[in-house]
């Protein structure tokens, strides 16, 4: 039986339904990300799991117990907030020990657990500092320690990295994942950052407008997006407008260049317009094994990103993006240069 089970969960605020009959189930120890743009209902789902919002309908079960009607302080969950939410009047040690004190743990045991937590987050010796004396990253680590100190059944993370700068965001997310794997704690992570979700999750729930668009492992979500929304929200996507030359043979014209595609939408008739989508990394400026479509164009723009160079290639009306590795021995291509790009037809997504 699944460790956390969300059944037909709905939440309405007045006439506005923000979560529309969402269901999912996950096993113990999984790291689950709820990913989607703002207003998609992901935070509302997390807040309903935490008990801060009451579902309009549906149920939430954790470890076999129906917690839908339970007060937040009875759910035995840990949570980390975007705004850290450390108690300003308590020092680091007291913050971490807060949940333990509420649970009635004796002072001696509490001290040992606080020390263990401080070591876990790499802040040993910071026990007497106050939140205002810490940087954002340190505060969020303390918040994480505070959430897991009472050994909760599940950890909820509400965009915990959004308020931090880029470098710390990456290092802290790796730390969170390492701690999560180490403790084996089931974790629900809410984020609007697809890179964050892809990098640390076991499974991702992609949400849009209160519904689940797709649920799956990061590579499934990225490589086999179920809907156009998932394809465009997760990762970069090129849209190529093409005209069907012959529906039976699946031949299309891309700005006058002819290509054969593996599939076409069922309603695509000869002469109609179709949109082909593909990831930037499937495009290549040199011949590659298995690349059966070749297109020519001119370089419209070059963005130097360090290890990677992002090219925008105009095929006519269509402009596609592709990434190439920076080769230190050759200069990056110049704007206006003609270029031949190739791709494998099997990599085209017809959504």
């Amino acid at each position: 039986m699944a460790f956390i089970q969300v059944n037909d969960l709905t939440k309405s605020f007045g006439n506005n339904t923000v979560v529309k009959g969402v269901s999912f189930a996950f096993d113990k120890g999984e790291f689950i990300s709820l990913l989607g743009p703002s207003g998609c209902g992901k935070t509302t789902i997390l807040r309903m799991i935490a008990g801060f919002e009451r579902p309009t309908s549906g149920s939430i079960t954790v470890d076999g117990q129906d917690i839908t009607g339970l007060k937040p302080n009875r759910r035995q969950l840990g949570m980390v907030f975007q705004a850290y939410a450390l108690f300003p009047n308590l020092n680091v040690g007291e913050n971490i020990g807060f949940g333990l004190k509420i649970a009635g743990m004796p002072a001696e045991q509490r001290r040992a657990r606080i020390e263990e937590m401080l070591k876990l987050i790499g802040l040993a010796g910071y026990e007497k500092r106050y939140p205002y004396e810490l940087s954002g990253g340190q505060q969020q680590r303390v918040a994480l320690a505070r959430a897991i100190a009472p050994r909760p059944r599940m950890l909820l993370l509400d965009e915990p990295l959004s308020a931090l700068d880029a470098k710390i965001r990456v290092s802290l997310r790796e730390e969170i994942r390492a701690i999560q794997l180490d403790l084996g704690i089931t974790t629900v992570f809410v984020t609007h950052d697809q890179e964050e979700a892809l990098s640390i999750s076991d499974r991702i729930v992609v949400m849009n407008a209160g519904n689940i668009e797709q649920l799956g492992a990061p590579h499934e979500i990225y490589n086999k997006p179920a809907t156009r929304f998932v394809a465009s929200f997760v990762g970069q996507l090129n849209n190529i407008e093409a005209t069907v030359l012959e529906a039976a043979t699946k031949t299309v014209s891309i700005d006058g260049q002819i290509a054969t595609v593996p599939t076409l939408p069922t309603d695509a008739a000869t002469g109609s317009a179709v949109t082909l989508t593909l990831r930037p990394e499937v495009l290549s400026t040199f011949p590659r094994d298995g690349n059966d479509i070749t297109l020519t164009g001119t370089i419209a723009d070059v963005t130097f990103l360090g290890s990677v160079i992002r090219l925008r290639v105009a095929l006519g009306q269509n402009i596609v993006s592709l990434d190439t590795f920076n080769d230190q021995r050759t200069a990056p291509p110049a704007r206006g240069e003609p270029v031949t790009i190739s791709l494998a037809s099997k990599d085209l997504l017809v959504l």
Partner: protein
Amino acid sequence: MKTSRLWPWLVFALGAAYFIVPLIATFEFSLRMRRGEYSFDAYASVFADPRFHASFGYSVAIGLVTIVVGVLVVVPAVYFVRLRMPWLRPFMEFVTLLPLIIPALILVYGYIRLYNSSSIIPFTGSALGTDILLTGAYVTLALPYMYRAVDNGMRTIDIGTLTEAAQIMGANQVQIIGQIILPNILVAILSGAFLTFAIVIGEFTIASLLNRPAFGPYLVNIGTNRAYEPAALAIISFIITWGAMGMINVLGRFAPRTSARTD
């Protein structure tokens, strides 16, 4: 000095003089009890009066009880309105302003009519009952100040998230208010407390009409019977009031710092 700076300073000096000159005059007069030389005889006389000690002690006691009751009423009210019923805030603002609009005289006549010895709740029937009534009246009188102080204090902390953070860790409402909210707005509460104290110490109308032996009626009584002591008392009560105001300033420096350093 530039002309542009001269005018503001002149206006400030005139304003300050308007307050300070009478104060200096009162102080100077209070020193004249002994003929031909300055002395603190009037102050000695005031401090030697047992009625001064009794009335001052009484007002301090009532003031402290007023503060405790005020905090117990206002803190949970502001907390729950901010957290659960933000739409009630304009109404709260209006209600807490009423004591500034309704004269104390009307308030106390209303109390006497409602709670006289022949009413259902005969508060004025006993000394203790009248003390309770007086405390209630002072809580009402201090409401505009206590409410604003506490409300400002809660504005500086994110009570919603702090409450949720404490809740998810198992804390109940009493633990959240007692261990998280109160300590974080302590400075604001103390500001409200000193303002309340300053009001209660000098209050005359309600204490006098309820016939309680408070400091305000004592001040007025001395004022009508003596020459130099009222001046000395005016200076003493001024020092007490300003001392309370000064404490608010001092305490402001100990306000909890909530913002994080940037990375």
